[in-house]
Protein backbone atom coordinates (compact mmCIF):
# COMPACT_ATOMS: atom_id res chain seq x y z
CA UNK A 1 0.00 0.00 0.00
CA UNK A 2 1.49 3.24 -1.15
CA UNK A 3 1.68 5.53 1.85
CA UNK A 4 1.93 8.61 -0.30
CA UNK A 5 -1.25 7.64 -2.11
CA UNK A 6 -3.01 7.04 1.16
CA UNK A 7 -1.88 10.39 2.49
CA UNK A 8 -2.96 12.17 -0.65
CA UNK A 9 -6.36 10.55 -0.74
CA UNK A 10 -6.78 11.12 2.95
CA UNK A 11 -6.16 14.83 2.51
CA UNK A 12 -8.52 14.88 -0.46
CA UNK A 13 -11.13 13.26 1.70
CA UNK A 14 -10.60 15.82 4.44
CA UNK A 15 -10.83 18.61 1.91
CA UNK A 16 -14.02 17.28 0.39
CA UNK A 17 -15.44 16.57 3.80
CA UNK A 18 -14.84 20.11 5.01
CA UNK A 19 -16.65 21.53 2.00
CA UNK A 20 -19.48 19.11 2.59
CA UNK A 21 -19.54 20.43 6.12
CA UNK A 22 -20.18 23.95 4.86
CA UNK A 23 -23.24 22.71 3.04
CA UNK A 24 -24.37 20.37 5.74
CA UNK A 25 -24.07 22.98 8.48
CA UNK A 26 -26.66 25.23 6.85
CA UNK A 27 -28.87 22.30 5.99
CA UNK A 28 -28.81 20.80 9.46
CA UNK A 29 -29.55 24.09 11.15
CA UNK A 30 -32.53 24.75 8.94
CA UNK A 31 -33.79 21.23 9.46
CA UNK A 32 -33.05 21.27 13.15
CA UNK A 33 -34.39 24.69 14.06
CA UNK A 34 -37.10 25.35 11.53
CA UNK A 35 -37.88 21.66 11.03
CA UNK A 36 -37.73 22.19 7.31
CA UNK A 37 -36.33 19.91 4.63
CA UNK A 38 -34.82 22.16 1.99
CA UNK A 39 -34.08 20.46 -1.33
CA UNK A 40 -33.15 23.81 -2.82
CA UNK A 41 -30.09 24.10 -0.59
CA UNK A 42 -27.94 22.70 -3.37
CA UNK A 43 -29.21 25.46 -5.61
CA UNK A 44 -27.66 28.05 -3.30
CA UNK A 45 -24.38 26.18 -3.66
CA UNK A 46 -24.74 26.35 -7.43
CA UNK A 47 -25.60 30.06 -7.39
CA UNK A 48 -22.52 30.73 -5.26
CA UNK A 49 -20.31 28.89 -7.74
CA UNK A 50 -21.83 30.72 -10.70
CA UNK A 51 -21.49 34.14 -9.08
CA UNK A 52 -17.88 33.39 -8.23
CA UNK A 53 -17.13 32.20 -11.76
CA UNK A 54 -18.67 35.23 -13.40
CA UNK A 55 -17.02 37.75 -11.07
CA UNK A 56 -13.68 35.98 -11.38
CA UNK A 57 -13.98 36.23 -15.14
CA UNK A 58 -14.70 39.96 -14.97
CA UNK A 59 -12.27 41.04 -12.27
CA UNK A 60 -9.58 38.38 -12.19
CA UNK A 61 -9.60 38.56 -8.43
CA UNK A 62 -10.49 35.38 -6.61
CA UNK A 63 -10.97 37.22 -3.35
CA UNK A 64 -13.56 39.59 -4.80
CA UNK A 65 -15.27 36.70 -6.53
CA UNK A 66 -15.66 34.81 -3.27
CA UNK A 67 -16.93 37.84 -1.39
CA UNK A 68 -19.48 38.67 -4.06
CA UNK A 69 -20.59 35.04 -4.16
CA UNK A 70 -21.06 34.98 -0.39
CA UNK A 71 -22.92 38.25 -0.12
CA UNK A 72 -24.96 37.76 -3.26
CA UNK A 73 -26.10 34.28 -2.35
CA UNK A 74 -26.82 35.27 1.22
CA UNK A 75 -29.04 38.07 -0.04
CA UNK A 76 -30.82 35.76 -2.45
CA UNK A 77 -31.29 33.28 0.36
CA UNK A 78 -32.70 35.90 2.70
CA UNK A 79 -35.14 37.20 0.12
CA UNK A 80 -36.22 33.64 -0.63
CA UNK A 81 -36.73 32.96 3.03
CA UNK A 82 -38.82 36.03 3.66
CA UNK A 83 -40.93 35.78 0.55
CA UNK A 84 -41.46 32.09 0.27
CA UNK A 85 -39.81 29.60 2.56
CA UNK A 86 -41.19 31.12 5.70
CA UNK A 87 -44.62 29.79 4.75
CA UNK A 88 -43.32 26.26 4.73
CA UNK A 89 -42.10 26.01 8.31
CA UNK A 90 -45.48 25.05 9.65
CA UNK A 91 -46.22 22.65 6.85
CA UNK A 92 -45.54 18.96 6.77
CA UNK A 93 -42.39 17.45 5.37
CA UNK A 94 -43.94 16.21 2.14
CA UNK A 95 -45.11 19.72 1.27
CA UNK A 96 -41.66 21.07 2.04
CA UNK A 97 -40.00 18.40 -0.08
CA UNK A 98 -42.22 19.19 -3.04
CA UNK A 99 -42.10 22.95 -2.71
CA UNK A 100 -38.32 23.08 -2.38
CA UNK A 101 -38.02 20.55 -5.18
CA UNK A 102 -40.04 22.94 -7.33
CA UNK A 103 -37.61 25.68 -6.31
CA UNK A 104 -34.74 23.47 -7.34
CA UNK A 105 -36.23 23.04 -10.82
CA UNK A 106 -36.87 26.76 -11.08
CA UNK A 107 -33.36 27.66 -9.94
CA UNK A 108 -31.77 25.24 -12.41
CA UNK A 109 -33.74 26.74 -15.23
CA UNK A 110 -33.20 30.37 -14.23
CA UNK A 111 -29.46 29.76 -14.09
CA UNK A 112 -29.65 28.13 -17.48
CA UNK A 113 -31.51 31.14 -18.85
CA UNK A 114 -29.18 33.71 -17.33
CA UNK A 115 -25.84 31.98 -17.82
CA UNK A 116 -26.49 29.58 -20.67
CA UNK A 117 -26.33 25.78 -20.71
CA UNK A 118 -22.58 25.27 -20.95
CA UNK A 119 -20.38 24.78 -17.93
CA UNK A 120 -18.38 27.78 -16.77
CA UNK A 121 -14.77 27.68 -15.78
CA UNK A 122 -13.59 29.00 -12.50
CA UNK A 123 -9.86 29.18 -12.12
CA UNK A 124 -8.10 29.17 -8.81
CA UNK A 125 -6.01 32.21 -8.03
CA UNK A 126 -2.52 32.09 -9.57
CA UNK A 127 -0.90 32.23 -6.20
CA UNK A 128 -2.46 28.91 -5.32
CA UNK A 129 -2.17 27.04 -8.57
CA UNK A 130 1.09 25.30 -7.80
CA UNK A 131 1.95 22.30 -5.67
CA UNK A 132 3.44 22.47 -2.23
CA UNK A 133 5.87 19.99 -0.76
CA UNK A 134 4.45 18.92 2.59
CA UNK A 135 6.95 16.25 3.47
CA UNK A 136 9.98 15.32 1.38
CA UNK A 137 8.80 13.39 -1.64
CA UNK A 138 5.15 14.30 -1.18
CA UNK A 139 3.65 17.28 -2.94
CA UNK A 140 0.06 18.34 -2.64
CA UNK A 141 -2.03 20.94 -4.42
CA UNK A 142 -1.70 24.25 -2.61
CA UNK A 143 -5.24 25.12 -3.58
CA UNK A 144 -6.59 22.04 -1.87
CA UNK A 145 -4.57 22.93 1.18
CA UNK A 146 -6.12 26.36 1.04
CA UNK A 147 -9.57 24.77 0.99
CA UNK A 148 -8.72 22.69 4.03
CA UNK A 149 -7.51 25.80 5.82
CA UNK A 150 -10.63 27.76 4.95
CA UNK A 151 -12.82 24.85 5.99
CA UNK A 152 -11.13 24.52 9.35
CA UNK A 153 -11.26 28.26 10.01
CA UNK A 154 -14.97 28.38 9.21
CA UNK A 155 -15.60 25.33 11.37
CA UNK A 156 -13.79 27.01 14.25
CA UNK A 157 -15.64 30.26 13.68
CA UNK A 158 -18.97 28.47 13.65
CA UNK A 159 -18.05 26.61 16.78
CA UNK A 160 -17.19 29.85 18.55
CA UNK A 161 -20.32 31.50 17.24
CA UNK A 162 -22.59 28.72 18.37
CA UNK A 163 -21.03 28.02 21.75
CA UNK A 164 -19.72 31.37 22.88
CA UNK A 165 -22.16 33.98 21.69
CA UNK A 166 -25.69 34.79 22.72
CA UNK A 167 -26.94 34.28 19.22
CA UNK A 168 -25.31 30.91 19.19
CA UNK A 169 -27.04 29.99 22.41
CA UNK A 170 -30.37 30.92 20.89
CA UNK A 171 -29.57 28.77 17.89
CA UNK A 172 -28.72 25.81 20.05
CA UNK A 173 -31.82 26.31 22.15
CA UNK A 174 -33.88 26.49 19.02
CA UNK A 175 -32.34 23.32 17.68
CA UNK A 176 -32.94 21.28 20.78
CA UNK A 177 -36.34 22.62 21.75
CA UNK A 178 -38.01 25.07 19.45
CA UNK A 179 -41.13 25.63 21.51
CA UNK A 180 -39.05 26.44 24.52
CA UNK A 181 -37.09 29.00 22.53
CA UNK A 182 -40.33 30.54 21.36
CA UNK A 183 -41.62 30.64 24.89
CA UNK A 184 -38.48 32.44 26.00
CA UNK A 185 -39.45 35.30 23.76
CA UNK A 186 -36.86 34.90 21.06
CA UNK A 187 -37.59 36.95 17.94
CA UNK A 188 -38.21 33.89 15.91
CA UNK A 189 -38.61 35.49 12.52
CA UNK A 190 -35.32 37.31 12.60
CA UNK A 191 -33.49 34.35 14.03
CA UNK A 192 -34.79 32.08 11.32
CA UNK A 193 -33.92 34.52 8.58
CA UNK A 194 -30.46 34.95 9.98
CA UNK A 195 -29.92 31.20 10.21
CA UNK A 196 -31.05 30.77 6.65
CA UNK A 197 -28.85 33.61 5.44
CA UNK A 198 -25.79 32.15 7.13
CA UNK A 199 -26.59 28.73 5.66
CA UNK A 200 -26.85 30.28 2.21
CA UNK A 201 -23.52 32.05 2.63
CA UNK A 202 -21.82 28.84 3.72
CA UNK A 203 -23.21 26.98 0.71
CA UNK A 204 -21.99 29.74 -1.57
CA UNK A 205 -18.55 29.52 -0.01
CA UNK A 206 -18.47 25.79 -0.68
CA UNK A 207 -19.58 26.41 -4.25
CA UNK A 208 -16.96 29.06 -4.85
CA UNK A 209 -14.21 26.97 -3.28
CA UNK A 210 -15.09 23.76 -5.10
CA UNK A 211 -15.76 25.52 -8.38
CA UNK A 212 -12.15 25.24 -9.62
CA UNK A 213 -12.09 21.52 -8.84
CA UNK A 214 -15.51 20.45 -10.03
CA UNK A 215 -17.45 21.74 -13.01
CA UNK A 216 -19.56 24.85 -12.56
CA UNK A 217 -22.70 23.71 -14.30
CA UNK A 218 -26.44 23.48 -13.92
CA UNK A 219 -27.34 20.50 -11.80
CA UNK A 220 -24.14 20.59 -9.77
CA UNK A 221 -26.24 21.14 -6.71
CA UNK A 222 -28.22 17.92 -6.97
CA UNK A 223 -25.27 15.62 -6.62
CA UNK A 224 -23.78 17.32 -3.61
CA UNK A 225 -27.13 17.93 -1.93
CA UNK A 226 -27.71 14.23 -1.64
CA UNK A 227 -24.34 13.85 0.03
CA UNK A 228 -25.19 16.67 2.41
CA UNK A 229 -28.32 14.79 3.42
CA UNK A 230 -26.28 11.69 4.08
CA UNK A 231 -24.04 13.81 6.27
CA UNK A 232 -26.80 15.24 8.40
CA UNK A 233 -28.49 11.87 8.79
CA UNK A 234 -25.23 10.32 9.94
CA UNK A 235 -24.24 13.28 12.09
CA UNK A 236 -27.59 13.98 13.65
CA UNK A 237 -30.15 16.51 12.59
CA UNK A 238 -29.69 19.92 14.15
CA UNK A 239 -26.18 19.34 15.37
CA UNK A 240 -23.25 21.34 13.97
CA UNK A 241 -20.78 19.07 15.65
CA UNK A 242 -22.59 16.14 14.06
CA UNK A 243 -22.42 17.87 10.69
CA UNK A 244 -18.65 18.29 11.04
CA UNK A 245 -17.97 14.74 12.14
CA UNK A 246 -20.46 13.35 9.65
CA UNK A 247 -19.03 15.40 6.81
CA UNK A 248 -15.47 14.34 7.47
CA UNK A 249 -16.57 10.72 7.79
CA UNK A 250 -18.57 10.85 4.57
CA UNK A 251 -15.89 12.79 2.74
CA UNK A 252 -13.08 10.42 3.69
CA UNK A 253 -15.11 7.23 3.29
CA UNK A 254 -16.23 8.31 -0.14
CA UNK A 255 -12.81 9.49 -1.36
CA UNK A 256 -10.79 6.67 0.13
CA UNK A 257 -13.40 4.15 -0.91
CA UNK A 258 -13.13 5.23 -4.50
CA UNK A 259 -9.39 4.57 -4.57
CA UNK A 260 -8.93 1.74 -2.13
CA UNK A 261 -11.91 -0.45 -2.94
CA UNK A 262 -11.19 -0.90 -6.64
CA UNK A 263 -7.53 -1.49 -5.79
CA UNK A 264 -8.19 -4.17 -3.21
CA UNK A 265 -10.82 -5.79 -5.36
CA UNK A 266 -8.41 -5.97 -8.28
CA UNK A 267 -6.02 -7.81 -6.01
CA UNK A 268 -8.63 -10.43 -5.20
CA UNK A 269 -10.92 -10.74 -8.20
CA UNK A 270 -10.47 -11.04 -11.96
CA UNK A 271 -10.00 -7.60 -13.50
CA UNK A 272 -13.19 -7.59 -15.57
CA UNK A 273 -15.34 -7.99 -12.48
CA UNK A 274 -13.23 -5.74 -10.32
CA UNK A 275 -13.32 -2.85 -12.76
CA UNK A 276 -17.11 -2.83 -12.65
CA UNK A 277 -17.66 -3.81 -9.06
CA UNK A 278 -15.09 -1.45 -7.60
CA UNK A 279 -16.60 1.88 -8.57
CA UNK A 280 -20.10 0.56 -7.90
CA UNK A 281 -19.29 -0.49 -4.36
CA UNK A 282 -17.37 2.69 -3.70
CA UNK A 283 -20.31 4.82 -4.78
CA UNK A 284 -22.89 3.00 -2.77
CA UNK A 285 -20.74 2.78 0.32
CA UNK A 286 -21.97 6.01 1.87
CA UNK A 287 -25.58 5.17 1.08
CA UNK A 288 -25.18 1.87 2.83
CA UNK A 289 -23.84 3.88 5.74
CA UNK A 290 -26.84 6.21 5.58
CA UNK A 291 -29.35 3.36 5.42
CA UNK A 292 -27.62 1.70 8.33
CA UNK A 293 -27.80 4.80 10.47
CA UNK A 294 -31.44 5.43 9.56
CA UNK A 295 -32.25 1.89 10.51
CA UNK A 296 -30.34 1.46 13.75
CA UNK A 297 -29.79 4.93 15.10
CA UNK A 298 -32.06 7.30 13.23
CA UNK A 299 -31.19 10.24 15.45
CA UNK A 300 -27.63 10.14 14.18
CA UNK A 301 -24.32 10.30 16.01
CA UNK A 302 -24.92 13.58 17.85
CA UNK A 303 -28.65 14.10 18.12
CA UNK A 304 -29.43 17.71 18.89
CA UNK A 305 -32.94 16.95 20.04
CA UNK A 306 -33.44 15.46 23.46
Amino acid at each position, binding site marked *: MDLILLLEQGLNGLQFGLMLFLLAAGLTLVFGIMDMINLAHGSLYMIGAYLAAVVMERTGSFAIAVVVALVGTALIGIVLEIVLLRRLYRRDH*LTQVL*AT*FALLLIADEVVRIVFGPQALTLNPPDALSGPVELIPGFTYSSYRLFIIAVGLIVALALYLLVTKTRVGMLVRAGASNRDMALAMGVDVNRLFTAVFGVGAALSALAGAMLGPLLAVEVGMGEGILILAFVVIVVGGIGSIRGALVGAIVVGTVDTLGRTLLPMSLRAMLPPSIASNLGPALASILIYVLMAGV*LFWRPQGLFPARG
Partner: protein
Amino acid sequence: MQVRAEQVSLEHPLRAWIALPLLLALIAFPLVMRSIEQPFYIVLVTRILIFALVATSLNLLVGFGGLVSFGHAAFLGAGAYVVGILMFHGIHSAWVVWPIAVGISAFAALLIGAISLRTRGVYFIMITLAFAQMVYYVFVSMKAYGGDDGLTLLARSQIGFGIDLKSDVAFYYVVLAVVAVCLFLFARLLNSRYGRVLQGTRENEIRMEAVGYPIYRYRLVAFVIAGAVAGLGGALLANLNLMASPNTLHWPQSGMLLIMVILGGVGTLWGGVMGATVLLLLEEILSTYTIHWQLGVGLVLLAVVLFAPNGLAAIARAVRANGPTK
Protein backbone atom coordinates in the same frame (compact mmCIF):
# COMPACT_ATOMS: atom_id res chain seq x y z
CA MET B 1 -69.67 22.22 18.88
CA GLN B 2 -69.79 20.06 15.80
CA VAL B 3 -67.11 20.42 13.22
CA ARG B 4 -67.50 19.50 9.58
CA ALA B 5 -64.63 17.14 9.08
CA GLU B 6 -63.18 16.25 5.73
CA GLN B 7 -64.56 12.97 4.50
CA VAL B 8 -63.13 10.32 2.23
CA SER B 9 -64.41 6.91 1.34
CA LEU B 10 -62.73 3.55 1.21
CA GLU B 11 -64.54 2.82 -2.02
CA HIS B 12 -63.15 3.90 -5.36
CA PRO B 13 -65.49 2.61 -8.01
CA LEU B 14 -64.24 2.34 -11.53
CA ARG B 15 -67.05 4.06 -13.29
CA ALA B 16 -67.78 2.53 -16.65
CA TRP B 17 -69.21 5.75 -18.00
CA ILE B 18 -65.77 7.31 -17.55
CA ALA B 19 -63.55 4.37 -18.34
CA LEU B 20 -65.24 3.03 -21.44
CA PRO B 21 -65.44 6.24 -23.45
CA LEU B 22 -61.87 6.98 -22.47
CA LEU B 23 -60.75 3.56 -23.61
CA LEU B 24 -62.61 3.87 -26.87
CA ALA B 25 -61.12 7.30 -27.49
CA LEU B 26 -57.66 5.94 -26.83
CA ILE B 27 -58.26 3.03 -29.17
CA ALA B 28 -59.40 5.37 -31.92
CA PHE B 29 -56.67 7.89 -31.25
CA PRO B 30 -53.83 6.56 -33.45
CA LEU B 31 -56.18 6.02 -36.32
CA VAL B 32 -57.31 9.61 -36.07
CA MET B 33 -53.74 10.85 -35.79
CA ARG B 34 -52.68 8.85 -38.78
CA SER B 35 -55.51 10.18 -40.84
CA ILE B 36 -54.59 13.78 -40.09
CA GLU B 37 -50.94 12.93 -40.50
CA GLN B 38 -49.72 13.82 -37.05
CA PRO B 39 -47.98 10.59 -36.03
CA PHE B 40 -45.77 12.35 -33.50
CA TYR B 41 -48.59 12.54 -31.00
CA ILE B 42 -48.90 8.78 -30.99
CA VAL B 43 -45.47 8.58 -29.39
CA LEU B 44 -46.37 11.33 -26.94
CA VAL B 45 -49.50 9.59 -25.78
CA THR B 46 -47.61 6.31 -25.51
CA ARG B 47 -45.23 8.07 -23.17
CA ILE B 48 -48.10 9.51 -21.18
CA LEU B 49 -49.66 6.07 -20.86
CA ILE B 50 -46.44 4.57 -19.56
CA PHE B 51 -45.95 7.28 -16.96
CA ALA B 52 -49.62 7.06 -16.04
CA LEU B 53 -48.92 3.46 -15.13
CA VAL B 54 -45.84 4.31 -13.10
CA ALA B 55 -47.47 7.26 -11.36
CA THR B 56 -50.43 5.07 -10.47
CA SER B 57 -48.09 2.55 -8.92
CA LEU B 58 -46.58 5.30 -6.81
CA ASN B 59 -50.05 6.52 -5.91
CA LEU B 60 -50.73 3.11 -4.44
CA LEU B 61 -47.94 3.75 -2.00
CA VAL B 62 -48.31 7.46 -1.40
CA GLY B 63 -52.00 8.10 -1.91
CA PHE B 64 -53.49 4.90 -0.64
CA GLY B 65 -50.83 3.67 1.72
CA GLY B 66 -49.65 6.97 3.10
CA LEU B 67 -46.05 5.96 2.41
CA VAL B 68 -44.05 8.75 0.82
CA SER B 69 -41.34 7.02 -1.15
CA PHE B 70 -38.68 9.25 -2.66
CA GLY B 71 -37.00 6.33 -4.38
CA HIS B 72 -39.55 5.05 -6.82
CA ALA B 73 -37.36 5.86 -9.80
CA ALA B 74 -35.17 2.95 -8.74
CA PHE B 75 -37.79 0.45 -9.86
CA LEU B 76 -38.60 2.35 -13.03
CA GLY B 77 -34.94 2.38 -13.96
CA ALA B 78 -34.35 -1.20 -12.90
CA GLY B 79 -37.09 -2.40 -15.23
CA ALA B 80 -35.62 -0.39 -18.10
CA TYR B 81 -32.11 -1.64 -17.52
CA VAL B 82 -33.14 -5.27 -17.20
CA VAL B 83 -34.72 -5.09 -20.65
CA GLY B 84 -31.66 -3.35 -22.04
CA ILE B 85 -29.21 -5.77 -20.51
CA LEU B 86 -31.10 -8.86 -21.61
CA MET B 87 -31.38 -7.48 -25.11
CA PHE B 88 -27.64 -6.76 -25.05
CA HIS B 89 -27.15 -10.46 -24.44
CA GLY B 90 -29.46 -11.39 -27.27
CA ILE B 91 -32.69 -12.11 -25.44
CA HIS B 92 -35.42 -10.33 -27.33
CA SER B 93 -38.72 -11.93 -26.51
CA ALA B 94 -41.04 -9.64 -24.60
CA TRP B 95 -42.69 -12.70 -23.08
CA VAL B 96 -39.41 -13.54 -21.37
CA VAL B 97 -37.84 -10.17 -20.82
CA TRP B 98 -40.79 -8.16 -19.52
CA PRO B 99 -41.76 -10.64 -16.79
CA ILE B 100 -38.12 -10.83 -15.73
CA ALA B 101 -38.02 -7.04 -15.48
CA VAL B 102 -41.13 -7.14 -13.32
CA GLY B 103 -39.72 -9.94 -11.24
CA ILE B 104 -36.41 -8.25 -10.56
CA SER B 105 -38.10 -4.94 -9.70
CA ALA B 106 -40.44 -6.80 -7.37
CA PHE B 107 -37.53 -8.52 -5.70
CA ALA B 108 -35.64 -5.24 -5.29
CA ALA B 109 -38.80 -3.73 -3.82
CA LEU B 110 -39.06 -6.64 -1.41
CA LEU B 111 -35.54 -6.07 -0.12
CA ILE B 112 -35.73 -2.29 -0.01
CA GLY B 113 -39.23 -2.31 1.44
CA ALA B 114 -38.41 -4.87 4.11
CA ILE B 115 -35.80 -2.52 5.54
CA SER B 116 -37.33 0.86 4.77
CA LEU B 117 -40.75 0.02 6.20
CA ARG B 118 -39.20 -0.39 9.61
CA THR B 119 -38.64 3.35 9.65
CA ARG B 120 -41.23 6.09 9.88
CA GLY B 121 -42.08 9.56 8.71
CA VAL B 122 -39.25 11.66 7.38
CA TYR B 123 -36.75 8.84 7.91
CA PHE B 124 -38.73 6.67 5.55
CA ILE B 125 -38.55 9.39 2.91
CA MET B 126 -34.79 9.60 3.30
CA ILE B 127 -34.04 5.92 3.46
CA THR B 128 -35.97 5.26 0.25
CA LEU B 129 -33.92 8.03 -1.30
CA ALA B 130 -30.72 6.42 -0.10
CA PHE B 131 -31.63 3.05 -1.55
CA ALA B 132 -32.59 4.62 -4.87
CA GLN B 133 -29.17 6.22 -5.01
CA MET B 134 -27.57 2.84 -4.46
CA VAL B 135 -29.53 1.37 -7.35
CA TYR B 136 -28.53 4.34 -9.51
CA TYR B 137 -24.85 3.87 -8.83
CA VAL B 138 -24.98 0.13 -9.30
CA PHE B 139 -26.37 0.47 -12.80
CA VAL B 140 -24.34 3.52 -13.78
CA SER B 141 -21.09 1.91 -12.72
CA MET B 142 -21.57 -1.01 -15.06
CA LYS B 143 -19.43 0.30 -17.89
CA ALA B 144 -20.22 -2.71 -20.00
CA TYR B 145 -23.83 -1.60 -20.09
CA GLY B 146 -23.25 1.99 -21.02
CA GLY B 147 -22.25 3.58 -17.73
CA ASP B 148 -23.05 7.27 -17.68
CA ASP B 149 -24.31 7.29 -21.23
CA GLY B 150 -26.95 4.68 -20.78
CA LEU B 151 -27.64 1.56 -22.74
CA THR B 152 -29.17 1.63 -26.16
CA LEU B 153 -31.52 -1.05 -27.36
CA LEU B 154 -31.07 -2.27 -30.90
CA ALA B 155 -34.75 -2.85 -31.36
CA ARG B 156 -37.92 -3.16 -29.40
CA SER B 157 -38.82 -6.42 -27.71
CA GLN B 158 -40.42 -9.05 -29.87
CA ILE B 159 -43.90 -10.19 -29.08
CA GLY B 160 -44.44 -12.54 -31.96
CA PHE B 161 -47.83 -13.10 -33.64
CA GLY B 162 -46.39 -11.35 -36.67
CA ILE B 163 -46.56 -7.99 -34.93
CA ASP B 164 -43.48 -5.82 -35.21
CA LEU B 165 -43.22 -3.33 -32.39
CA LYS B 166 -40.99 -1.16 -34.51
CA SER B 167 -44.24 0.37 -35.68
CA ASP B 168 -45.15 3.13 -33.26
CA VAL B 169 -48.80 2.37 -33.74
CA ALA B 170 -48.38 -1.30 -32.93
CA PHE B 171 -46.34 -0.42 -29.88
CA TYR B 172 -48.97 2.10 -28.80
CA TYR B 173 -51.67 -0.55 -28.82
CA VAL B 174 -49.54 -2.97 -26.84
CA VAL B 175 -48.86 -0.29 -24.24
CA LEU B 176 -52.52 0.69 -24.17
CA ALA B 177 -53.52 -2.92 -23.60
CA VAL B 178 -51.01 -3.36 -20.78
CA VAL B 179 -51.91 -0.10 -19.07
CA ALA B 180 -55.66 -0.66 -19.42
CA VAL B 181 -55.42 -4.12 -17.89
CA CYS B 182 -53.20 -2.87 -15.08
CA LEU B 183 -55.51 0.01 -14.29
CA PHE B 184 -58.45 -2.35 -14.18
CA LEU B 185 -56.59 -4.62 -11.78
CA PHE B 186 -55.61 -1.58 -9.74
CA ALA B 187 -59.26 -0.60 -9.39
CA ARG B 188 -60.12 -4.08 -8.19
CA LEU B 189 -57.23 -4.00 -5.77
CA LEU B 190 -58.34 -0.73 -4.24
CA ASN B 191 -61.86 -1.97 -3.67
CA SER B 192 -60.84 -5.33 -2.33
CA ARG B 193 -60.38 -6.23 1.29
CA TYR B 194 -56.69 -5.54 0.89
CA GLY B 195 -57.32 -2.09 -0.51
CA ARG B 196 -59.48 -1.17 2.46
CA VAL B 197 -56.86 -2.29 4.91
CA LEU B 198 -54.14 -0.37 3.13
CA GLN B 199 -56.20 2.80 3.26
CA GLY B 200 -56.97 2.11 6.87
CA THR B 201 -53.26 2.09 7.65
CA ARG B 202 -52.99 5.45 5.94
CA GLU B 203 -55.78 6.88 8.06
CA ASN B 204 -54.69 5.60 11.44
CA GLU B 205 -51.82 3.21 11.71
CA ILE B 206 -52.08 2.61 15.46
CA ARG B 207 -55.78 1.91 15.31
CA MET B 208 -55.30 -0.64 12.57
CA GLU B 209 -52.75 -2.44 14.64
CA ALA B 210 -55.12 -2.25 17.59
CA VAL B 211 -57.94 -3.95 15.72
CA GLY B 212 -55.71 -6.81 14.75
CA TYR B 213 -53.98 -6.08 11.45
CA PRO B 214 -50.25 -6.79 11.06
CA ILE B 215 -49.71 -3.56 9.17
CA TYR B 216 -46.07 -4.13 8.28
CA ARG B 217 -47.07 -7.04 6.08
CA TYR B 218 -49.76 -5.11 4.27
CA ARG B 219 -47.39 -2.23 3.60
CA LEU B 220 -44.67 -4.51 2.34
CA VAL B 221 -47.09 -6.06 -0.13
CA ALA B 222 -48.02 -2.58 -1.36
CA PHE B 223 -44.35 -1.70 -1.73
CA VAL B 224 -43.67 -4.83 -3.77
CA ILE B 225 -46.70 -4.38 -6.01
CA ALA B 226 -45.79 -0.75 -6.62
CA GLY B 227 -42.20 -1.66 -7.40
CA ALA B 228 -43.23 -4.47 -9.74
CA VAL B 229 -45.59 -2.26 -11.71
CA ALA B 230 -42.99 0.49 -11.92
CA GLY B 231 -40.61 -2.13 -13.28
CA LEU B 232 -43.14 -3.01 -15.95
CA GLY B 233 -43.37 0.69 -16.79
CA GLY B 234 -39.61 0.80 -17.03
CA ALA B 235 -39.59 -2.12 -19.45
CA LEU B 236 -42.11 -0.30 -21.63
CA LEU B 237 -40.18 2.95 -21.36
CA ALA B 238 -36.95 1.32 -22.48
CA ASN B 239 -38.80 -0.03 -25.47
CA LEU B 240 -40.30 3.36 -26.24
CA ASN B 241 -37.02 5.23 -26.11
CA LEU B 242 -34.91 2.34 -27.32
CA MET B 243 -32.71 3.23 -24.42
CA ALA B 244 -32.16 2.60 -20.74
CA SER B 245 -30.97 5.91 -19.39
CA PRO B 246 -29.34 6.68 -16.04
CA ASN B 247 -31.60 9.73 -15.86
CA THR B 248 -34.47 7.37 -15.21
CA LEU B 249 -32.71 6.34 -12.01
CA HIS B 250 -31.60 9.78 -10.93
CA TRP B 251 -33.29 11.09 -7.79
CA PRO B 252 -35.01 14.04 -9.45
CA GLN B 253 -36.93 11.44 -11.43
CA SER B 254 -38.38 10.19 -8.16
CA GLY B 255 -39.31 13.78 -7.45
CA MET B 256 -41.06 14.09 -10.79
CA LEU B 257 -43.06 10.96 -10.11
CA LEU B 258 -44.17 12.39 -6.79
CA ILE B 259 -45.15 15.60 -8.56
CA MET B 260 -47.35 13.60 -10.91
CA VAL B 261 -49.11 11.97 -8.01
CA ILE B 262 -49.66 15.29 -6.26
CA LEU B 263 -50.85 17.10 -9.36
CA GLY B 264 -53.23 14.32 -10.23
CA GLY B 265 -54.71 13.97 -6.79
CA VAL B 266 -53.32 11.67 -4.14
CA GLY B 267 -55.51 8.86 -3.09
CA THR B 268 -57.82 8.93 -6.07
CA LEU B 269 -58.23 6.13 -8.58
CA TRP B 270 -57.31 8.28 -11.57
CA GLY B 271 -54.76 10.39 -9.73
CA GLY B 272 -51.69 8.84 -11.32
CA VAL B 273 -53.21 8.96 -14.78
CA MET B 274 -54.24 12.58 -14.47
CA GLY B 275 -50.99 13.65 -12.95
CA ALA B 276 -48.89 12.04 -15.66
CA THR B 277 -51.13 13.50 -18.33
CA VAL B 278 -51.04 16.99 -16.85
CA LEU B 279 -47.31 17.02 -16.27
CA LEU B 280 -46.27 15.54 -19.59
CA LEU B 281 -48.71 17.70 -21.52
CA LEU B 282 -47.49 20.71 -19.64
CA GLU B 283 -43.92 19.82 -20.55
CA GLU B 284 -44.90 19.29 -24.15
CA ILE B 285 -46.86 22.51 -24.50
CA LEU B 286 -44.33 24.63 -22.69
CA SER B 287 -41.45 23.24 -24.69
CA THR B 288 -43.03 24.38 -27.92
CA TYR B 289 -42.72 27.91 -26.59
CA THR B 290 -39.40 27.71 -24.88
CA ILE B 291 -36.68 25.24 -24.07
CA HIS B 292 -37.01 26.42 -20.50
CA TRP B 293 -40.21 24.48 -19.90
CA GLN B 294 -38.85 23.20 -16.62
CA LEU B 295 -39.34 26.68 -15.24
CA GLY B 296 -43.04 26.51 -15.99
CA VAL B 297 -43.33 23.09 -14.37
CA GLY B 298 -41.55 24.32 -11.28
CA LEU B 299 -43.81 27.35 -10.98
CA VAL B 300 -46.97 25.31 -11.46
CA LEU B 301 -45.87 22.78 -8.89
CA LEU B 302 -44.97 25.52 -6.44
CA ALA B 303 -48.37 27.11 -6.91
CA VAL B 304 -50.18 23.80 -6.43
CA VAL B 305 -48.24 22.98 -3.31
CA LEU B 306 -48.69 26.39 -1.75
CA PHE B 307 -52.28 27.13 -2.67
CA ALA B 308 -54.08 23.84 -3.21
CA PRO B 309 -52.78 21.64 -0.46
CA ASN B 310 -55.90 19.58 0.15
CA GLY B 311 -54.71 16.67 -1.83
CA LEU B 312 -51.68 16.55 0.39
CA ALA B 313 -53.59 16.76 3.65
CA ALA B 314 -54.10 13.09 4.19
CA ILE B 315 -50.57 12.15 3.35
CA ALA B 316 -49.26 14.94 5.47
CA ARG B 317 -51.24 13.65 8.37
CA ALA B 318 -49.95 10.15 7.81
CA VAL B 319 -46.34 11.24 7.66
CA ARG B 320 -46.82 13.41 10.73
CA ALA B 321 -48.67 10.84 12.76
CA ASN B 322 -46.40 7.99 11.91
CA GLY B 323 -43.14 9.85 12.29
CA PRO B 324 -41.05 10.76 15.28
CA THR B 325 -40.69 14.34 14.14
CA LYS B 326 -43.48 16.71 13.23
